[in-house]
């Protein structure tokens, strides 16, 4: 019996899960302490509000409806986290998911509102735009040795300003927001597939959610079960070794960034083509979605299937932040908690090493004890 328990703890997936849970708990505890420091009176209520999110509503129809809204925003987050983790598996840190998400938004909304195209063409345009931006970072890395982190960050800002300029062409006269899809081009709204009805007629719930989950599975298959995935991962491990094995390491780098970019761009289309939000053309900061994708990717143990759950969790607490008592706290407290969780994810490697060292010591002790006890059995 004990033997089995040891082997369970040694299982990589179990260790990742434990590490992630630990990150979540520690993140929430530190967040709670911050709330206590700001105003002890409401801290309990606030942390509960963050964790409960839509469950604060007493009516089940309202709960379902807001559960649906959380899911609507989980889909793009999942796509961004897939983008980050895919690149990370190939040894690239795709901090540019944010920018690729932004150009995806630009392409999707311009095709929908400016060119009046149907939804699937908008979706494809978003994927292509994201992939193109990702490929730029890939080319710079492969041919000019520009660190992908720096080039991605620069591209994030460039794309933010460029998309603001582009979408100003399709914005409402009196507000900084783009036209709504419903009023301008209904054909660009992602089909609901009848899913909306399940969530107390939340019309924004639709194709995006199953599509995102399907993509997660496909990414897993691509990485773990195909030759291409193996080649990409080999390039990430050691690009020189990969080169000497006859792999085209430059092509692989560019392809990786293009796929990662495409994933993030697609995520943007999933949110903005649901009609849930409009783009604000005066936005002065790169949207947090891409950065939260980093949190979700690492919290999910860099596994596409894990990312489904971690993305949901991150979005759950981000939405939950909207329910804290605004007379005492700001909703950014949930950004603070998710940032803390990313920070704590940095310690996962240390946690696993320490856990393994502890297990080894325990096994040694057990063996020593068994040796001393002689053949008692």
């Amino acid at each position: 019996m004990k033997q089995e328990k040891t082997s369970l703890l040694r299982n990589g997936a179990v260790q990742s899960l434990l590490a992630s849970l630990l990150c979540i708990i520690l993140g929430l505890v530190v967040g709670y302490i911050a709330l206590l420091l700001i105003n002890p009176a409401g801290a309990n209520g606030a942390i509960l509000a963050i964790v409960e999110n839509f469950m604060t509503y007493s009516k089940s129809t309202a709960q379902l409806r807001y559960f649906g809204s959380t899911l609507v925003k989980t889909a793009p987050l999942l796509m961004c986290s897939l983008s980050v983790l895919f690149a990370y598996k190939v040894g690239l840190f795709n901090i540019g998911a944010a920018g690729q998400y932004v150009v995806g938004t630009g392409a999707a909304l311009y095709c929908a509102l400016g060119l009046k195209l149907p939804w699937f063409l908008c979706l494809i345009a978003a994927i292509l735009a994201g992939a193109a931006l990702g490929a730029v970072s890939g080319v710079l890395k492969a041919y000019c040795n520009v660190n992908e982190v720096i080039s991605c960050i620069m591209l994030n800002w460039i794309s933010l300003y460029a998309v603001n300029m582009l979408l100003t062409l399709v914005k409402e006269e009196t507000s900084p927001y783009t036209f709504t899809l419903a009023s301008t081009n209904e054909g660009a709204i992602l089909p609901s597939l009848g899913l909306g009805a399940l969530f107390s007629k939340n019309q924004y719930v639709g194709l995006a959610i199953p599509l995102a989950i399907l993509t997660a599975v496909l990414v897993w298959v691509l990485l773990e079960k195909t030759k291409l995935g193996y080649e990409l991962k080999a390039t990430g491990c050691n690009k020189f070794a990969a080169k000497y094995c006859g792999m085209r390491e430059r092509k692989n780098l560019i392809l990786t960034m293009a796929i990662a970019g495409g994933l993030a761009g697609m995520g943007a289309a999933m949110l903005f083509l649901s009609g849930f939000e409009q783009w604000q053309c005066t936005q002065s900061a790169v949207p947090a979605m891409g950065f939260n994708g980093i949190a979700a990717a690492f919290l999910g143990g860099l596994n596409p299937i894990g990312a489904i759950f971690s993305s949901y969790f991150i979005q759950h607490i981000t939405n939950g932040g909207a329910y804290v008592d605004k007379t005492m706290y700001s909703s950014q407290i949930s950004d603070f908690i998710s940032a803390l969780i990313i920070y704590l994810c940095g310690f996962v490697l240390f946690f696993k090493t320490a856990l393994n060292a502890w297990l080894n010591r325990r096994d040694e002790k057990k063996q020593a004890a068994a040796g001393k006890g002689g053949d008692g059995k």
Partner: protein
Amino acid sequence: MILLLQYTLIFASVLLLVALGGCFSEHSGVINIGLEGIMVMGALGGALMMKFLPAGTPALVMILLVILAAVAIGMLFSLLLGVAAIRFSADQTLVGTALNLLGPAAAVVLVRAINMAENADNVSSTVVYGQAKKAFLVYIGKFEFNWFMLIALLALAASYIVLYKTKFGLRLMACGEHPQAADSVGINVYRMRYAGVLISGALGGLGGLVYITAGVSEWKFENGVAGFGFLALAVMIFGQWKPVNIGLAALLFALFRALSNVYTGIGLLDALNLPSTVYNMFPYIISLVVLVFVSKKSRAPKAEGIPYDKGQR
């Protein structure tokens, strides 16, 4: 034209300070992507100090205390990176990114809490420090001289001397090039890397303070520092991790950044009638183009980004 010069110099001071910070950290072997977050925290420290110091404080005391607050908070915050990256061998890019998210979020939460405690209706994330800021300014004719310009220049000279002319600096750089070799001759690699990260925290925090006092008299912390921490990293790479080159790179980048503030006042540029967004994009585009040309023969410290493990050879 004077305005352009003034903005160029003040933005150059910001970029120079922060890039020098990054330079120390990277020479010790730790990549500091988190400079953006560190700047926000330093700016927060300085802004709160300016807000809460009584109005009659003498200018010199004021300057010293405000700088001290920014530097101290910046160092404290950079310690989060130091501990994770040096003691716990964490992925430096990941932790740096976390700092970039953590800094602005923490600043907004804190500023809102302070604002709401003062006045329940005030839910903004803005700190106002108009009066206190004047301590930093001296008017020479129309030119608004800011003490930080001098401080940045001094920091440049000091960095050059420390890195190339002192035992400490040479040892620090050894830890970023080949930590195992450094360790074998008795240098404490961990301590050197902590020193590098802490210096970057101090300079980054100071840079953040300079940024928020450049031209404005209140700061909305929701805006963070608009990517200046990242621009500073580009400056550092363009400067090939050498203080003097970093100084020149900072001037170049600052010029392009300053253009977006003052282009309407320059007849030729105003006549081009480009949207202001184009000028906002300029520094980032320039830095990307520059990186394309200088990254091929990169002089980056060889061991940067790799956690030092005594047992490894």
